[in-house]
């Protein structure tokens, strides 16, 4: 029975796809009214039976008693839930298609100081990952250079480039772009005694003193380049472009040293996090921690310096054998209780659709359901300075909205409607197409 139902659902969704793709081709602003839905606004208590009006890409009205404007396309969402779309704040979306195939990967530049490279430049709008990911209710992501994945080859650089916030729909990058430069990526160096040599495919062990020397060299390199950027910013402030020698790398760091652009610092070990926080504090940089496997060990420092954390998936094994088996799963509630702002991220492309699952697992281990949902919607938006546009259902915000038949974090919940930039967007994707094709394969 349920099989037939899903077949019907697929047929329905295909129709929706055609409807949506034709509407996308004609970008006439459409007004939508989602009625009789449970509205999880995240800006107040849920509204059990409410209406959302979407107009010109924005939320035009929302509430329990909102009039449906004439000509609006009405979606009766009785029994359904409306929530802000999910926001995955660390991915390689559009930068990497098939991890093992280098020619499909643009996520990491060579060399260690590349502050001038920008993710948005290389995001491939036709990547198959984009429709697959949005079908899981993720409406926007941060595409992050140098953030790893299978393809990083071990070398991610120090200043790896600028991360771009993007909508997961649009014909071109210009349409997809939320913020071209949303954060500067800094892979914090670590004292590594064990390394992997890719030239020989072998492990290498080196003494602590040697590893520490290498670490200090990298920190000095960072200090130097930031110092140069500061001088550069000064020169820019004092004279016209003809008065000094232009430098694209230093120029890219000017908003960083001016504290305008946050630095997304990748670090996992407590010692590295501590060093990074102290460094950013001294350099007066706006730090966002990404990774944070051992953030719980430095939670007081993180709170006192007001450093938010974008956590690796909680579905990750603890590092040390004698860590409690649920060490990573119980960290979100521990950090939240300590007053540290957290968000969840996939740190991946093909596992991006596990974002909700990760939040749900953190909830299962003590995080409140509301905090869990905010950690994949509002908090990533706040952390990246985008909460004026995204993260809650409020009038004036961009209409990135999901309509589901239940809790959007639960594994068995279906996504019924998806709005990105106020457009009813297709949930069709490579996986659904292959499913339908082989569902209809005649018996051999």
């Amino acid at each position, binding site marked *: 029975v*349920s099989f037939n139902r*899903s077949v019907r659902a697929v047929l329905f969704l295909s129709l929706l796809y055609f409807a949506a793709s034709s509407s996308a081709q004609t970008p006439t602003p459409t007004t939508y009214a989602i009625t009789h839905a449970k509205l999880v606004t995240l800006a107040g208590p849920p509204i059990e039976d409410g209406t959302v009006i979407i107009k010109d890409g924005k939320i035009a009205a929302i509430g329990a008693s909102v009039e449906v404007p004439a000509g609006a396309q009405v979606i009766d969402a009785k029994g359904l839930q409306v929530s802000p779309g999910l926001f995955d704040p660390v991915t390689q979306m559009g930068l990497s298609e*098939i*991890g*093992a*195939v280098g020619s499909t990967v643009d996520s990491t530049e060579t060399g260690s100081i590349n502050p001038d490279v920008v993710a948005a430049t290389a995001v491939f709008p036709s990547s*198959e990952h984009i429709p697959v990911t949005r079908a899981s209710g993720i409406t926007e992501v941060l595409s992050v250079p140098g953030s*790893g994945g*299978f393809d990083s080859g*071990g070398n991610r650089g120090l200043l790896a480039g600028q991360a771009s916030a993007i909508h997961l729909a649009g014909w071109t990058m210009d349409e997809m772009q939320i913020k071209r430069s949303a954060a500067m990526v800094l892979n914090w160096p*670590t*004292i*590594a*005694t*064990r*390394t*992997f040599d*890719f*030239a020989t*495919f*072998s*492990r290498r062990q080196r003494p*602590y003193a040697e590893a520490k020397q290498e670490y200090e060299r990298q920190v000095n390199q960072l200090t130097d380049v930031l110092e140069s950027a500061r001088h550069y910013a000064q020169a820019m402030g004092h004279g016209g472009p003809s008065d000094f020698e232009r430098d694209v790398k230093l120029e890219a760091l000017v908003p960083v040293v001016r504290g305008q652009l946050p630095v997304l610092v990748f670090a*996992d*070990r407590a*010692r590295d996090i501590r060093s990074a926080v102290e460094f950013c504090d001294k350099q007066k940089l706006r730090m966002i921690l990404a990774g944070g*496997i051992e953030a719980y060990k430095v939670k007081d420092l993180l709170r006192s310096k007001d450093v938010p954390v974008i956590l*690796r998936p909680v*579905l*990750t*094994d603890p*590092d*040390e*054998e*004698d860590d*409690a*088996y*649920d060490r990573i799963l119980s960290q979100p509630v521990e950090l939240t209780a300590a007053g540290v702002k957290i968000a969840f991220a996939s740190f991946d492309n*093909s*596992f991006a*659709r596990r974002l*909700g*699952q990760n939040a*749900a*697992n953190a909830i*299962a*281990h003590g995080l409140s359901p509301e905090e869990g949902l905010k950690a994949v919607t509002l908090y990533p938006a706040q952390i990246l300075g985008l909460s004026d546009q995204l993260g809650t259902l409020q009038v004036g915000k961009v209409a990135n909205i999901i309509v589901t038949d239940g809790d959007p974090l*639960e*594994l*068995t*919940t279906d996504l019924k409607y998806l709005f990105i930039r106020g457009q009813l967007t297709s949930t069709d994707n*490579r*996986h659904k197409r*292959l*499913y339908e094709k*082989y*569902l209809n*394969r005649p*018996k*051999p």
Partner: protein
Amino acid sequence: VKASSMLLRSLAAASVFAAACIAAFAATPPDAPVILIQNATVLTVTHGTIEHGSVLIKDGKIAEVGASIKAPSGAQIIDGTGLFVSPGIIDCHSHIAVDGSVNEGSISVSSIANIAEVLDSDDISIYRDLAGGVTTANILHGSANSIGGQTIVIKLRWGQPAAKLPFEGAIPGIKFALGENPKRSNFSIPGRERRYPASRMGVEETIRGAFTEARDYKNAWDTYNKRTAAGEKNLTPPRRDLRLDPLVEVLEGKRYVHSHCYREDEILMLLRVAKEFGFKVRTFQHVLEGYKVADEIAAAGAGASTFSDWWAYKVEAYDAIPYNAALMTRRGVLVSINSDDAEEATHLNQEAAKCIKYGGLSRDEALKLVTLNPAIQLGIDKRVGSIDAGKDADLVIYNHDPLSAYAVVQKTLIDGRIYFDRQKDIAARAGLEKEKKTLLDKEKAAAKKPEEKKAEKPGEAKKPEEKKPEEKKKPEDMATMPQAGTDGGAQ
């Protein structure tokens, strides 16, 4: 006594924890107690869900399942109010509890290697998977070779010696591998000559070649045994070949073939080769394009053990779809969902639940993907895989519906014994932490003394070396590039 002497010698904090757990379990009485779980939601898998149901456990077996069971005197009662009981999770593709690399990657036919000989009962992944509800796992050799090593089914009896891990009477297996991994597409080192096979054509011929030898070898032995049985004397037996012996067992149906594969063409290739030599493929592993040739897999009577939603990490995973398990199920294939990864195994119940959404399996069908179906695939379904009287009492108690992301395992039982208890685990933490500190302080003091004697600058003791934080260790067959700090993606 053994534990305390180990503790004294221990340098690594890891051993401290493992030893403490062994010590904890040494106190458990050897005989499984009589346990009655009452008033729980019992997901039997074979005969529906019993609300407010009971399960009686005696002598390590499920004695009775039903709506209400009278407690025998002296039975330990577990109040299951608000809790869910499912059969123990069975992971049909695991690499836990293996000492060292899972690949004898030097040769393309490594049937001589046997995982059973390198079981490591101290691997912390056993405990962590147990804490995720896994009770049985199929421990496989890696996928570097067309014909890999011999494999073994274990129960996750944490705290027991390696000799107690194997699932008694389970038919052993052998790993085969097709596609990118055995042809080493993603692992070539510049300047190093490539190993045969380097193409899917060569993979087929490697397997055909090995079975041609194995068939001749079997014939030689059959002839010898027949003539000896007929009374002939002084015959020279054929030379024993440890590499071919396991393949003869495959031909005789005494050893299961578990074959790593991705693409539709290579799946059909192995079915052809199997038909040519008269053996069966017990399971296709990963089999991410299985949905394309589900009818052929079903017709051959082969099983399929796949991932829930992995894709795009390599070319042969680009057509992977999360509907794979449901589509194959609908076409009559016996399907399981596996982990290939110690961490993934801790939430296989969640991975199974995804097949309700992707392809519309029923709740029972979904739960079967990680319980009864892998049991059938491994030939152990008379013992495990469902909650039925007479089966081993391998059970998981959850605080929530296991087909949900919100379920947390409270207890895991194997053979009627509680091997994992979340409350006890949490309660033991402070003590373990204290013990660890005491031991580390002792070690530091001991290490400092000789240092101080010869130290020119006292107080500048050598700093302990710290490990680079590791990336999440990639599952064995998913690994495409070595990660710093791991053994090169186990390849």
